[in-house]
């Protein structure tokens, strides 16, 4: 595993407010439509279906009056220290482009699935079937996202094509492509969330909302102690939710941020 986290001038990141998430699943639908994920015949077969973004249900495990649930959307965490790319035998996945998005090149992927085994977040999926769209639905295919054949691994790309489009827009306007304004590049899930639970932007740019949100004392990342340095942060004022972000011993206190 790459032990040193790669640094960039621009680091695209997401901050998801778990307390605002109602678990409606609109983000999953938006993701599916935006990224050309074809419907499968039997989506109830979870071993063979795929979602780039998946909403998990969390529970505090207590009985009725104290019972609470929370919903946690999980995109690719775009780790700074990426366990997936270091095991890829063919460099189909890497993190070397300004912005720090972990790439996934389906035409290069040989489907060995090492990366899936290496990913601690189960953010990677194997494509078991050639995509088939019901007639008429193929008209909504996003042109800037390639359609993946069966036999390759795929994952959330932070809607990378929207990043390229935002850069092109900036170029034509004569602006610096590495100093995009807040909101000029956002993912489909961010745009769709009806409750505004997802914020997206440059984690290193003070003018972006995520810069401040990710430094909140309620912010946490998943399995932080593995040292993967994810670029996805979660927010919750509820301690039990923050506690579920990592594996704590029963009597271990939840770490408190700065």
């Amino acid at each position, binding site marked *: 595993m790459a032990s040193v986290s790669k640094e960039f001038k621009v680091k695209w990141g997401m901050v998801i407010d778990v307390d605002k998430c109602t678990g409606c699943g609109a983000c999953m639908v938006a993701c599916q439509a935006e990224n050309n994920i074809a419907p499968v015949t039997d989506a109830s077969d979870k071993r063979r279906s795929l979602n780039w973004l998946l909403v998990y249900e969390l529970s505090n495990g207590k009985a009725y009056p104290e019972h609470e649930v929370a919903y946690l959307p999980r995109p690719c965490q775009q780790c700074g220290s990426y366990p997936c790319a270091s095991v890829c035998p063919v460099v189909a996945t890497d993190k070397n482009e300004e912005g720090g998005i972990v790439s996934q*090149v389906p035409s290069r992927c040989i489907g060995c699935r090492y990366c899936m085994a290496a990913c601690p977040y189960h953010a990677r999926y194997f494509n078991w079937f050639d995509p088939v769209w019901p007639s008429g639905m193929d008209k909504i295919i996003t042109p800037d996202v390639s359609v993946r054949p069966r036999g390759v691994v795929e994952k959330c790309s932070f809607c990378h094509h929207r990043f390229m*489009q935002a850069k092109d827009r900036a170029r034509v306007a004569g602006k610096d492509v590495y100093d995009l304004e807040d909101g000029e590049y956002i993912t489909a899930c961010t745009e769709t969330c009806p409750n505004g639970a997802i914020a997206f932007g440059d984690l290193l740019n003070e003018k972006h909302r995520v810069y401040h949100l990710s430094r909140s004392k309620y912010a946490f990342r998943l399995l932080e102690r593995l040292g993967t340095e994810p670029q996805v942060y979660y927010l919750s004022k509820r301690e039990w939710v923050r506690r579920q972000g990592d594996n704590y011993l029963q009597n271990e206190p939840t770490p408190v941020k700065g």
Partner: protein
Amino acid sequence: MEEKRNKAAGIGGLISAAVLPFIIGLILALVIGWWAFPLVLFKEVPQPVAFKHSPHSEVMECADCHFLREDGSFSGIPTTAECASCHESAQGESRAEAEYIEKYVNGEQEAPWLVHQKQPDNAFFSHAAHSLESCQQMGCHADYEKAEDLCITCHPSTADLDKPVPYLENRLTGYSNSTMKMWECERCHANPNHLDMTNANNACYTCHK
């Protein structure tokens, strides 16, 4: 002595007997590989309209037909409506034009143009990044005076041609023979003059989607 000489002659004969077929075979293979095979592999497909650049570049700028939209996307080939602004009625006497007006302008349909450069679904290309403005913003390439000088680093020079560039389709893949291969993109992108000086990035995700 006598025996030895015989042996030497035998070896010489052996060499010529072995080398000659080899050379003939090599030449045959090269002829087949470089001349015959491409002839079989590629077939010429005519463009839907016998469009010539030359009469147009006399009266218009390239950017009148090929321009970047405000949102950064590239308006590649003009629509029939744009062409019809002139070709509502015939501009000359040529048959090509009459046929064009008859079929597409009066028929109100788009011509199914064949794009020489068409890339596969998994490659991403941006004209905004390769525009003259983008080039000049970096302060490089003072040698490019007009947009056209830049276009022809990737495209065949069509502007002065008075006949369409023949479109050769690969019978196996369906792609044209003048589509850019990855190594041709790399010639610029992996070039140290671009790699650290500009935003030309050699990360896979720059060009793949």
